[in-house]
């Protein structure tokens, strides 16, 4: 019962968060007033009337998604009134913006959105619910498919009445988790910068790509069938049964596929975009702009293909938090942390001890010298891109598991990845790891004193302070900076 309730709540949250994607520019067509009653949830059957002066222009009733629309005779000033009688008993109309909008100016061709907000009784301005305070951007006609929760990672299990020490511990854990995810995604960015000198703006969208691929494959029935078959066969076998049962869970299989596809995407980009551009002697600054163009293409293709909704993975979602001393953490987040550490150690070992890793570091250090000492630079660069793509896809899956999957997740993570890379030192893989952890911790711990909406702002602020005092970063060497 409780599980079902939570599922329903999640569905409601997803519905609230879903906003249609729009364009930046002006719109065409007839003038309308429209809106969506969706806070705290979508409400059907609310009457909204539009007046011009004292003349009634039209009435609309919200549909099952809470949407309403009134067509207007032309531009001008209108008054929009919400009928309080039609509001169901479990809601009241919020004090701001109230039940009436006066002086709604509609310009020629404008499809203007008017916002009404409902609340649960007793839950007034002073105690806004999370969805209410963080969410809404559908309030403009030139809207975009994102909303207020962007980049705001909720720290799980932090309640207002826990002591300061517990809070610090809890946020530290959340910060470590966040930092590890940033670090995993950023290592590739830093390696690519080191080997090719390119600041890859499309890296964030490679993260989104990984997350969305995992989402696509986690819903595949084939994987579910495989999982059922495996667990059916091996459920009695000691140790092997549960382990393989986990490994063959659809989500885990989908993650592996996503990593493979992410690596493939990196390799394809390097082989068919960046290598030809290098052959053409395109300057780095031009390549940098190309990467921004590529990022835009990738991001919006993903937006069109998957829609602008925030989606959660079907698996590993509803978990009881475990208590480890004062800290509460879900098994999912703990697994993400352990796996992230393992992967980062693995990458470090790869860089430190294998031939390929040494070659990567050599190319990163001095491309020409590496080439003249017999390293196949093109091939090493290809490996770096593959590794970077795979890692970013993994980071995307972890980020999506920890929070939600949406088309701009990678872009929001990208700015933090840049901060991490700059903080640690551009071009050094270890710097990206250290920088990622610092950024994650700063972001989460800032919520102790400051509003959580600004946590990413603090992380980026740290980056700017770092540029002021030590531009080469924590682990960077001084001569890297021009």
């Amino acid at each position, binding site marked *: 019962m409780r599980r079902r309730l939570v599922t329903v709540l999640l569905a409601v949250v997803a519905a609230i968060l879903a906003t249609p994607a*729009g364009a930046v*520019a002006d719109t065409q067509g007839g003038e309308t007033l429209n809106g969506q009653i969706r806070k705290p949830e979508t409400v059907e059957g609310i009457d909204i009337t539009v007046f011009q002066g004292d003349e009634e222009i039209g009435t609309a009733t919200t549909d099952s998604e809470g949407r309403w629309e009134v067509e207007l005779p032309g531009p001008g000033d209108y008054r929009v009134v919400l009928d309080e009688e039609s509001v169901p008993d479990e809601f009241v109309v919020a004090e701001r913006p109230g039940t009436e909008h006066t002086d709604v100016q509609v310009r020629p061709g404008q499809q203007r959105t008017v916002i009404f907000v409902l609340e649960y009784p007793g839950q007034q301005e002073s105690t806004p619910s999370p969805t209410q305070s963080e969410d809404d951007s559908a309030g403009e006609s030139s809207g975009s498919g994102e909303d*207020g929760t962007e980049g705001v990672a909720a720290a799980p299990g932090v309640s207002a009445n826990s002591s300061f020490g517990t809070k610090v511990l809890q946020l530290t854990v959340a910060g470590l988790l966040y930092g590890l995810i940033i670090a995993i995604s950023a290592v590739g960015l830093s390696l690519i910068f080191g080997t090719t000198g390119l600041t890859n703006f499309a890296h964030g969208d490679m993260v989104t790509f990984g997350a969305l691929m995992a989402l696509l494959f986690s819903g595949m029935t084939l994987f579910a069938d495989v999982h059922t078959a495996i667990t059916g066969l091996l459920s009695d076998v000691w140790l092997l049964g549960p382990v393989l049962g986990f490994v063959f869970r659809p989500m885990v299989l989908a993650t592996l596929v996503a990593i493979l596809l992410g690596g493939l995407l990196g390799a394809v980009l390097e082989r068919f975009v960046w290598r030809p551009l290098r052959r053409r002697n395109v*300057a780095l600054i031009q390549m940098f702009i*190309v990467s921004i*163009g590529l990022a835009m293409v990738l991001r919006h293709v993903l937006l069109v293909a998957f829609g602008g909704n925030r989606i959660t993975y079907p698996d590993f979602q509803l978990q009881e938090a475990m208590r480890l001393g004062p800290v509460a953490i879900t098994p999912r987040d703990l697994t993400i942390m352990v796996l992230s550490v393992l992967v980062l150690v693995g990458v470090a070992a790869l860089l430190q001890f294998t031939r390929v890793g040494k070659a990567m570091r050599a190319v990163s250090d001095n491309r020409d010298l590496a080439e003249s000492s017999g390293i196949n630079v093109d091939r090493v660069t290809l490996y770096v891109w593959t590794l970077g793509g795979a890692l970013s896809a993994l980071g995307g899956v972890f980020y999506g598991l920890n929070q939600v999957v949406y088309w701009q997740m990678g872009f929001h993570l990208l700015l933090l990845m840049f901060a991490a890379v700059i903080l640690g030192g551009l071009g050094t893989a270890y710097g990206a790891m250290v920088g990622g952890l610092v950024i994650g911790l700063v972001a989460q711990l800032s919520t102790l004193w400051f509003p959580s909406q600004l946590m990413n*702002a603090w992380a980026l602020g740290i980056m700017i302070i770092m540029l002021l005092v030590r531009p080469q970063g924590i682990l960077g060497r001084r001569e890297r*900076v021009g």
Partner: protein
Amino acid sequence: MDILQVLADATRSAIGPVAAVYALAAIGLNMHFGYTGLLNFGQVGFMLVGGYGVAVSVSTFGLPLWAGILVGIACAVALALLLGVPTLRLRADYLAITTIAVAEVARLVYRAEFLRDITGGVYGLQGFAGGFYDLNPFPSGRYGFGWLAFNARDLWMMTVAWGLVLLASVLMWLLVHSPWGRVIKGIREDEDAVRSLGKNVFVYKMQSLVLGGVFGALAGAMLVVNQQTITPDQFMPQVTFYLWAILLLGGAGRTLGPVLGSVVMWFLLTASDSVLRQLTSSGVITFITNSEIGGIRHALVGVALVVLIVFRPQGLIGNRKEMLVNVK
């Protein structure tokens, strides 16, 4: 398909106020990138502070409109100093990363809950542009002919916006043909050479950043006056990428480059939009819906950016030799 409708839509948007606003912001970007070689990827941040300068001053504090525009410009100067002091001494891509990050931070701050009393939070602000439209000298009515007609309000807006574009262009021409402009262009070509001539490169770069930022702030102010509303989420990073596409399409390092780029770009964008909409509504294309056209348009801008920079970095009217410099 109604070709005439497409052409009419496209022409209206190409000479409309939005195209003028983008041209003005792109002129600022041209100052940064086209003449000085600065990689500013946060031009939208300047537009944001310019727009909110007007909106907050008028709506929240009840100042007159001209004071609001001055406040917006002052904010842009402050933002340019904030961006420039840490990054202008470093390699070019540091400035790029910092500008895009700061523009995003500014948007997050302006939409934050605790500032709602001042900035209106995610709901933004309305009703601050009345003073502008009260000055409208045109008597109400339709101006123009047939499908190319504007009402008095739009005509007033367009006159002012394109007038500002003209002023900015003239100012830019005078500036880049002055001794100051030669130093600026020298910095783009070879920073060390200029430094060896005893010029303080940092100060010149800073002046360029401030000046271009002020143009951006003016564009932001005009944008919100045109819409009569402001919300933080219309200042997404995509706007900056649009500006880059406009600048590169028109030709960076040319006075008229951004203006031409904006007109052509909005013509093409609206035309493709209009064609796609007609095709989907008449059922020729079934695999995309109307709501996805915005996404497709952004993707097309991305493609344009890539193709332009690789195959024609000088844009429509630029000088290829000038644009092939290696920015360090």
